[in-house]
């Protein structure tokens, strides 16, 4: 073991150097010879028929290489965009997937829907020509709210989905749950909306497509969290190029948060255009395009009922949710409000009866898909607001109500599919209560009151399912892909190591964390280990990074490949040292015969593997092993978050003054990086709770299309955070990892809102809790008292 860099060490990041000196290589930084640029003509209407396209002026415009339309795309047999997870409605019918062409042919369904692509010599010339394309539209009535879209007579987004209903899906036992609610001594009922968010990775999406006509080969550089999946989908469904003639490279990627999982119309168009024009074609979104076209997140409207017996034990939990999926079904859109949402509705609690109905709905808005947490924040928000409100209604301490309902025995089978393998929920709550110094909260509240501020405290005990996921399990639930991960560990003759991983790092620090598990285990220097990812030509396959899966699944694959390397190393050394294989140990950069001074240095063994001069009989030379690791279960990170806020009663301005997180992520490889993930997630959660909201006007115009209107959390909106860890190692994978990428964004919104509702004495508050919203809630709470 090399403890200075091994598991649990706060190793500084290897990848930082290129970023801090300005040498990062993001897609838009790459320039290719003969490069042209794409600009898209987009629908200004939320819903319209495309009656005609006159491209003649654009074609004649300076520097124009080509003007491409949806008709040409169809003629070239480029396939429609698809959703890769099949959901079945309660009546047995399949979900209704409306056609989505990369360039619209006859109808546009949201503002920003791409209609024409103009390829020109420079970005400015492409944009100028795009403005000269005349598209004739016949406007149609639009609908933006999912609840409205379900009403009779609402505008129809897709002909094949009557009433705009994509699916009407259920999970759990409805009769038993309703019976549990009927028997309850107390029922808490709430209407809870989960506001619509724009992911806003700071690097806008970008694509550069390079076509080699001699080989009929394509290369796509793009901002992707999962380049292999992109290649698979581009070839298998969109028919752009066969898989063996398509290389997808995701170089440095400036954040993803889900938004860079999917294949978008622009990448498809750039690839196709590179073949049609014989030019390399680049497109980089500006921020306005990002707001208009990047898949949004959340947008749920929920009514929840939770019943309790006289001791405060939950007797039943019923949740009815309407989920807005936007104008088209994005790649994983269908699983987000179903299997990533309703399956988590048991939270940390022992609940016998849960029932959930989800209606997924088309509207004339940008498609909605996974955004950091994806379904799990929505579930957590519903449960944790219900628990807090119920505690107040029953005059119980909110922490104690939770504790009373905690699951304490593992494994635990919930009524909604998930089987929790391990956890320590009471320990997490205790750690958070201690770290947040809840005991002296009353003093802080009193002190704030002297300053004229309303101080409140709010809890959130979250659980999530990560490590997505056992392939057979997700396959049985409708997934179109398996969700294993692959790795290849190549030990070079000189003993340095290259690890090829199917995970993709776009900020998560894999180049450091993944190297640590090898350096630590074999006792090798960190600089001798390189982590390679993000290129389908170099890495054999991979499912990519999302759902906090790179630790639990990606690193497990590396460990499996390392096991094979170690086994071979031991055989080679045993043979050379004339010892029994069982007596060989690898440590401190050497391969030793235990209990003796006989040893070979690591690089001596690797060299022996490659010279092949003295290998055991029948052994192949070389030292390179791979693995495909398929997890046995989801993993279940969990924890308790406590927020403290101060509200100015005169203005409604809310400040998060303290934020404490106690997370159980299982084994931590690099706590510094893990805490960084939590910090970022919390800021996004505070952003959701207080600031962020995508707003469309009634007729479908995007009102929050820039940073002037969409309020991003900035440094002075958030506090410094207190981060604690408790640990129950995950029994399901070799390192005991649960995953840490999304917890912050999942656990924090209810903690913040519960703190505000505590401060103002009104449980009826929706996100984002902007000053006018909070101010109105304060007034509403004061009204009955004034009347009394």
């Amino acid at each position, binding site marked *: 073991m090399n403890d200075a860099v091994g598991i649990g060490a706060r190793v*500084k*990041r290897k*990848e*930082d*150097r*290129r*970023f*801090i*000196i*300005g*040498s*990062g*290589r*993001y897609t*838009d*930084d790459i*320039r290719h010879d003969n490069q042209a640029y794409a600009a898209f003509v987009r629908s200004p209407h939320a819903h319209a028929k495309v009656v005609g396209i006159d491209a003649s002026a654009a074609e004649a415009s300076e520097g124009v290489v080509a003007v491409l339309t949806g008709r040409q795309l169809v003629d070239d047999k480029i396939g429609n965009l698809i959703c890769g997870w099949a959901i079945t409605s309660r009546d047995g019918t399949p979900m209704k997937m409306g056609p989505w062409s990369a360039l619209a042919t006859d109808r546009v369904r949201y503002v920003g829907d791409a209609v024409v692509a103009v390829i020109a010599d420079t970005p*400015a010339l492409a944009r100028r020509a795009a403005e000269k394309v005349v598209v004739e539209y016949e406007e149609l009535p639009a609908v933006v709210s999912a609840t409205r879209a379900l009403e009779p007579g609402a505008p129809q987004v897709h002909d094949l989905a009557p009433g705009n209903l994509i699916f009407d899906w259920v999970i759990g036992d409805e009769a038993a749950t309703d019976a549990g609610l009927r028997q309850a001594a107390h029922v808490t009922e709430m209407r809870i909306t989960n506001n619509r968010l724009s992911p*806003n*990775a*700071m*690097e*806008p999406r970008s694509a550069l497509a390079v076509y080699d006509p001699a080989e009929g080969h394509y290369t796509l550089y793009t901002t992707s969290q999962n380049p292999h999946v992109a290649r698979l989908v581009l070839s298998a469904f969109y028919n752009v190029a066969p898989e063996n003639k398509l290389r997808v490279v995701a170089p*440095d*990627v*400036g*954040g993803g*948060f889900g938004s860079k999982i999917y294949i978008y119309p622009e990448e498809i168009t750039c690839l196709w255009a590179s073949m049609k024009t014989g030019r390399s074609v680049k497109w980089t979104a*500006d*921020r*306005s395009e990002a707001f208009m076209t990047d898949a949004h997140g959340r947008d749920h409207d929920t009514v929840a009922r939770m019943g309790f017996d006289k001791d405060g034990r939950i007797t039943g939990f019923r949740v009815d949710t309407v989920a807005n999926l936007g104008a088209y079904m994005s790649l994983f859109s269908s699983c987000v409000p179903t299997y990533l949402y309703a399956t988590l509705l048991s939270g940390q609690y022992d609940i016998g009866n849960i029932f959930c109905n989800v209606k997924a709905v088309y509207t004339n808005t940008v498609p909605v898909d996974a955004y950091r947490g994806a379904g799990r924040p929505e579930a957590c928000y519903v449960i944790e607001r219900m628990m807090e409100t119920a505690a107040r209604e029953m005059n119980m301490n909110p922490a104690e109500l939770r504790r009373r309902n905690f699951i304490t025995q593992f494994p635990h089978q919930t009524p909604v599919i998930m089987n929790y393998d391990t956890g320590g929920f009471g320990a997490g709550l205790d750690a958070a209560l201690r770290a947040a110094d809840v005991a002296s909260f009353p003093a802080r509240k009193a002190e704030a009151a002297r300053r004229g501020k309303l101080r409140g405290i709010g809890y959130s005990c979250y659980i999530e399912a990560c490590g997505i996921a056992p392939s057979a399990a997700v396959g049985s639930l409708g997934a179109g892909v398996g969700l294993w991960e692959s790795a290849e560990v190549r030990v070079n003759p000189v003993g340095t190591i290259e690890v090829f991983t199917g995970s993709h790092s*776009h*900020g*998560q*620090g894999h180049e450091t964390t993944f190297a640590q598990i090898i350096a630590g285990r074999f006792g090798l220097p960190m600089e001798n280990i390189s982590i390679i990812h993000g290129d389908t030509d170099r890495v054999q396959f991979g499912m990519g990074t999302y759902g906090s899966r790179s630790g639990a699944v990606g690193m497990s694959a590396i460990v499996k490949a390392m096991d094979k390397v170690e086994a071979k190393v031991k055989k080679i050394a045993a043979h050379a040292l004339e010892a029994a294989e069982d007596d060989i140990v690898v440590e401190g950069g050497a391969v030793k015969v235990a209990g003796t001074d006989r040893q070979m240095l690591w690089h001596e063994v690797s060299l022996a593997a490659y010279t092949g001069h003295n290998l055991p009989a029948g052994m192949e030379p070389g030292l390179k092993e791979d693995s495909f690791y398929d997890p046995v279960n989801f993993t279940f990170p969990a924890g308790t978050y406590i927020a403290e806020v101060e509200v100015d009663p005169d203005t409604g301005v809310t400040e998060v003054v303290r934020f404490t997180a106690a997370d159980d992520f299982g084994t931590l490889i690099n706590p*510094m*990086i893990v*805490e*960084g993930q*939590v*910090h*970022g*997630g*919390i*800021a*996004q959660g505070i952003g959701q709770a207080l600031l962020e909201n995508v707003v469309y006007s009634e007729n479908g115009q995007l009102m929050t299309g*820039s*940073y*002037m209107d969409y309020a*991003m*959390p*900035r*440094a*002075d909106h*958030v506090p*410094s*955070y207190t981060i604690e860890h408790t640990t129950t190692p995950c029994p399901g994978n070799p390192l005991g990892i649960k995953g840490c990428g999304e917890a*912050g964004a999942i656990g924090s919104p209810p903690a913040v809102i519960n703190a505000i509702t505590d401060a103002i004495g009104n449980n009826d508050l929706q996100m984002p809790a902007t000053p006018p919203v909070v101010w109105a809630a304060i007034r509403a709470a004061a009204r009955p008292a004034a009347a009394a």
Partner: protein
Amino acid sequence: MAEVKLTVNGKRVTRHVPDETLLVEFLREELRLTGTHVGCDTSQCGACTVHVDGMAVKSCTMLAASASGSEVTTIEGLANGGLHPMQKAFNDNHGLQCGFCTPGMIMTAVDMVRRYKASGERLDEEAIRHELEGNICRCTGYHNIVKSIQQAAGEM
């Protein structure tokens, strides 16, 4: 076309570019200094921050032509070959994740520390957070960026 004469990271450059060329475009596309990033189109995010005559400027808000005659420092030229204390502090404190906002953050932070040192004002956590208003980071939640700046402020 406009003639743009600049000293960038100590080197003199002269180029003829379309009048409307922004300084950030000039740096990225003409000089291929791609460490300066573009994160928005409303001068809100600060990813494009460079120093013009020693002061932090959002290079997406300035025409290359109007910068003509100035000295420009980009992230690539902040510490010729070595590491500026601010760069080192970002590495020491895990002040970056995806790295996209980082060049702008570092250029803003260096300017911030210099200004506070010059004026003798105290650069505490609250002041740092306030000063960072024009720089958006989606990854770090700002916690470690603030720590990085605090460390570098002690060393600069």
